[in-house]
Structure formats: structure tokens, C-alpha cells
């Protein structure tokens, strides 16, 4: 099938660029997205997940705007004393760098996957999962400190607005759940890569699909870091 463009020359369908490409992709009675179905489905799942996390963040914005009690200062709540000197937000900063590093190793794993480099792909995915597990571990440490030392509960805390606890546990808990699920997902795919399952079919798309999920988890953290911890 061919498409006649505005300028008059004939191009095969599927290679028209820009807005005209949108029209041909949706109207030509064929598959709209020239990507593997798993990748399209992962994107659509991530879009729906975007709305879930957005609902949490918007509700956090709403309770923070509407409370008449002062909001606890995250910079002080999440400070850690290293060598007797409290450093503001240091644990969260380290967690941010760890998650970004895991995104970097994941991006490289996807690249090595497409180069059919089985060993490096599996190794980099396992390193990514390791970073993710470290992140969850640090989050568990942070929660423990907040619950036992600061006395923060979902229904109230001694530092200020009661909504601080509910927003914090809901948002970071749901994100931590995503990281934990991602670690399991990555380990499963990495072991299958290592075993050579995708070597036989020559199809490493699954690595990119797992990577999309992992980068999304990092992406959500960027927003949580900005709105919850820095704001």
C-alpha cells in the first residue's frame, strides 16, 4: 500500500513522518504501533500507573495545602547524623543516586541485549536488581527510623500536620512496592537471559520491556523526590 503525500510523491505507508504519520498509522487499517505488542502494552500499563501515582501526589498536594497545622520540614525529618553533624536529607540523596545508577546500568543492559551479548546483559541486569534491592533496604531503614525514633504514624505525628504520615507512607510505600516487584522481575528475566532462552529466538525485546518498567520506577522517584522531599 502506498500513500500520496501533500507534495505529490508516493511513499509506502508506515514511513510518513510527523503529524501526517500519526494519521496514516491510525487510519490505514493495520497495526497502529510498529513495536512488539509487549512493548506497546508495557507503555500503556505505565501510562495507567502514571495516573495512579499522580492521584497520590495530587492528594498529597491537596492535604498539604488545606491543613492549618504547620507541615513538618522534610529537610530536618530526613536528616542523618554523620560524625555528630546532622546532614539534611542525606539518606534520600544517596537513595536517589542509587536509583539513577540502577537506571544507567539497565539502559546499558538493554543496549548489550540488542548486541546479543548474553553475559553482559545478564550481569548488568543483576547489578540493576542489586541497586534496586539496596534502595528498598535503605527505604526500610528510613521507615524504621521514622516510626521508632520520630514517632510518625499514618494518623499523626509529634512534628506537625497529621497528614504528613499518611502521605509519606502511602506514596513511598507504593513506590517501594514497585521497586520490589521490579527487582523480582529483573532477576527472573536476567536468569532467563543467562540460561540462553532468548539466544535461541534471537529476540531480546523482553530486556527492553523490563527496562521500560525499571526506568519508570526511577522516573516516579524523580517526582517524589522533588515534591515530597524537596518542596
Amino acid at each position, binding site marked *: 500500500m502506498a500513500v500520496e503525500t501533500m507534495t505529490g510523491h508516493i511513499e509506502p505507508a508506515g514511513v510518513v513522518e510527523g503529524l501526517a504519520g500519526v494519521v496514516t498509522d491510525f487510519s490505514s487499517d493495520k497495526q497502529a504501533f510498529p513495536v512488539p505488542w509487549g512493548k506497546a502494552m508495557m507503555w500503556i500499563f505505565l501510562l495507567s500507573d502514571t495516573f495512579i501515582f499522580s492521584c497520590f501526589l495530587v492528594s498529597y498536594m491537596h492535604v498539604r495545602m488545606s491543613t492549618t497545622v504547620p507541615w513538618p520540614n522534610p529537610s530536618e525529618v530526613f536528616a542523618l547524623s554523620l560524625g555528630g553533624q546532622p546532614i539534611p536529607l542525606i539518606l534520600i540523596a544517596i537513595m536517589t543516586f542509587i536509583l539513577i545508577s540502577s537506571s544507567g546500568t539497565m539502559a546499558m543492559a538493554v543496549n548489550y541485549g540488542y548486541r546479543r551479548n548474553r553475559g553482559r546483559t545478564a550481569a548488568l541486569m543483576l547489578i540493576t536488581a542489586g541497586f534496586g534491592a539496596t534502595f528498598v533496604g535503605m527505604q526500610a531503614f528510613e521507615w524504621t527510623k521514622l516510626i521508632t525514633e520520630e514517632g510518625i504514624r499514618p494518623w499523626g505525628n509529634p512534628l506537625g500536620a497529621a497528614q504528613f504520615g499518611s502521605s509519606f507512607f502511602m506514596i513511598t510505600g507504593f513506590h517501594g512496592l514497585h521497586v520490589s516487584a521490579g527487582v523480582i522481575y529483573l532477576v527472573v528475566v536476567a536468569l532467563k537471559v543467562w540460561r540462553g532462552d532468548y539466544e535461541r529466538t534471537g529476540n531480546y525485546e523482553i530486556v527492553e520491556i523490563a527496562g521500560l518498567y525499571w526506568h519508570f520506577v526511577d*522516573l516516579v522517584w524523580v517526582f517524589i523526590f522533588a515534591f515530597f522531599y524537596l518542596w
Partner: protein
Amino acid sequence: MSAHEGTQHPISVYLWIWLALFVLSALSYSVDYFHVQGLLRWTLIIVFMFLKAGLIVSIFMHMKWERMALKLVILVPPLCLLVLIGLMAIEGDYTFLTRSVAFTP
């Protein structure tokens, strides 16, 4: 087109983006560390946040190399969240005012 172009990127692309994300994170952390306050603080937080998000989505998630149809399907719907944010901001303000009048001693 699309993902298979991803096979051709040298690893250095990802290392550079990684470095850029590190620098941007360090910058957003220093906003808090140096106690930048007020409008400048919020502007810097938002700018660094969107730069990081943009790099992750476009390079790490390969959105830059996807066809425009997929880009629009994924990136346009979240814009309706702006309506939700706007409505909730108005509502939050109203609740704050009502509480100030009715519940503050």
C-alpha cells in the same frame, strides 16, 4: 526506525546521560542543602525535575526514537492531570480558608 535504531547507540550515550542525571540530582539536592527559599526554590526544583524526567523518558526509555503516534498516545493523556491539579488546588485553598475561619482558636 523505532527500537531497532537503539541497537546502534554506543554505550557512551548512556554514560553521558547517567552523568547528566547525577549532576542534575546533585543540583536539586544542593537547592535544599544551601536553603534556597521561596519562588527560586520552587522554580529550581521544577526545572531540575523536568530535565531529569525528560532525559529518562527520551533517552533511557527510547521515546526519542519511537514513532510520533506512540509518543502522542503516551505523552498527551497525562496532560489532563493539569485539570485535576488545578481543581484540587482551588479546593485545597477553599478548605484551608474554611478551616482557618471555623477551626482555628
